[in-house]
């Protein structure tokens, strides 16, 4: 069955919007580097969400205007950011007290692989000789209540990223709650992966074909939308 790999299904922006719709009003949220950052642009009107960046800022705002960049006001990806009215700064031990102490409600991360049990691999490609670097990823998955993964469903080479068992070094075991891909929204449950929603025009068989782990339909999404 032909599926135009990464172009199929939802766009990156639509994926980010799918995530944003599932973040309740009043949440404290940590967004990983890359695609997760897009989520901040799709918070539905009327909801107030506060962004945490682990290098010591609660109340992170958008990028600064050109010429207003401050090298001492950055995010965890070392990009220039702003601070909203009501923001606060703190040191690293307090920042990870917020994370490890389970005070952050939602964290959205990218992934190399996610297993059917919610194991996540997103820090190391496992290539020999590469300099390993982990940052705060392992602390985030160990401490944040709701770990959402946003990722393309398959790799550029066409390999499934949603797998029975991760082959790459793990970031955490059984930590992912929900997976948002360009093809579907998947819930990690005791019974395996459940399809909450599929991208328009996609059939279940087609979705399963591009997923290494077995899927089941959620009862409410069995009807075609």
């Amino acid at each position, binding site marked *: 069955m032909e599926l135009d790999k990464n172009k199929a299904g939802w766009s990156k922006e639509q994926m980010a919007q799918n995530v944003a719709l599932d973040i309740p009003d009043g949440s404290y949220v940590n967004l990983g580097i890359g695609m997760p950052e897009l989520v901040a642009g799709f918070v539905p009107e009327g909801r107030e969400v506060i962004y945490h960046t682990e290098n010591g800022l609660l109340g992170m705002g958008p990028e600064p205007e050109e010429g207003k960049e401050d090298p001492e006001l950055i995010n965890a990806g*070392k990009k220039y950011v702003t601070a909203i009215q009501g923001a606060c700064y703190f*040191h*690293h*031990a307090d920042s*990870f007290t917020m994370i490890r102490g389970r005070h952050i409600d939602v964290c959205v991360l990218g992934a190399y692989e996610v297993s059917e049990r919610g194991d996540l691999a997103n820090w190391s490609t496992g290539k020999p000789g590469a300099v390993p670097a*982990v940052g705060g990823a*392992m602390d985030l998955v160990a401490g944040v209540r709701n770990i959402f993964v946003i990722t393309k469903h398959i790799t550029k080479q066409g390999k499934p990223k949603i797998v029975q068992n991760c082959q790459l070094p793990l970031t955490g075991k059984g930590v992912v709650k929900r997976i948002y891909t360009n093809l579907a929204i998947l819930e990690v449950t005791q019974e395996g992966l459940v399809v909450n929603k599929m991208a328009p025009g996609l059939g279940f068989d087609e979705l399963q074909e591009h997923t290494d782990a077995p899927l089941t339909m959620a009862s409410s999404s069995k009807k075609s939308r």
Partner: protein
Amino acid sequence: MINKLVPSLAEAVNGVKDGSVIMISGFGEAGSPIELIHALIDQGAKDLTIVSNNTGSGHVGIASLIEHRRVRKMICSFPRTTNSVVFPELYSQGEIELELVPQGTLAERIRAGGAGIPAFYTPTSVGTPLEEGKETRVFDGQTYLMEHGIKADFSLVKCEAADRYGNLVYNKTARNFGPIMCTAAETTIVQARGMVELGELDPEAVVTPGIFVQRIVEINHPLDESKLVSENWRYPWN
């Protein structure tokens, strides 16, 4: 009279011995005490263990310290960044040791070191390659790893303002590891963008109480590391 202000960078880093463990504040460029690091290069101590979140950019700051072969081992969470060239090369040649520590575990190990706590249990990195060789224990059905506190001989920290007692405040996200590193060293050496009179810092808003600081040097116009990196500067200045 207590006055922790020292007149020069050379005096600030005086007495650092070969083989010392040194914590260096900063998250990338933000909060990195670049003038103190350069003074340490001039001072000459070698065989150092450096505790810092990153390994520096270009050929200045921590990267220059590493390039001058003063560092035996790095303890950090993210040893490569966009402009990090020196560490990856030496690491791939097996010429420098790396202890990779998750960022929150690194912060807590430093906090514990400063608080007189030899070890603690954390859920971070359980079930991953970084749990190897570490003691585990189950509390309320969940597995935790034992991690050790870290203490240093010296900490090099950048802050925004200091008074002569060593009370400090920081600037925005340049605070990062500074306050906890101040607590965890035998000798904490601070570079402050400005000195203020006693009483000028609101006691309710002091971030680092002066008891944690031993020496302060005033650097009113610290170098802009990303500018130095983009212009390809090397320390000592070429």
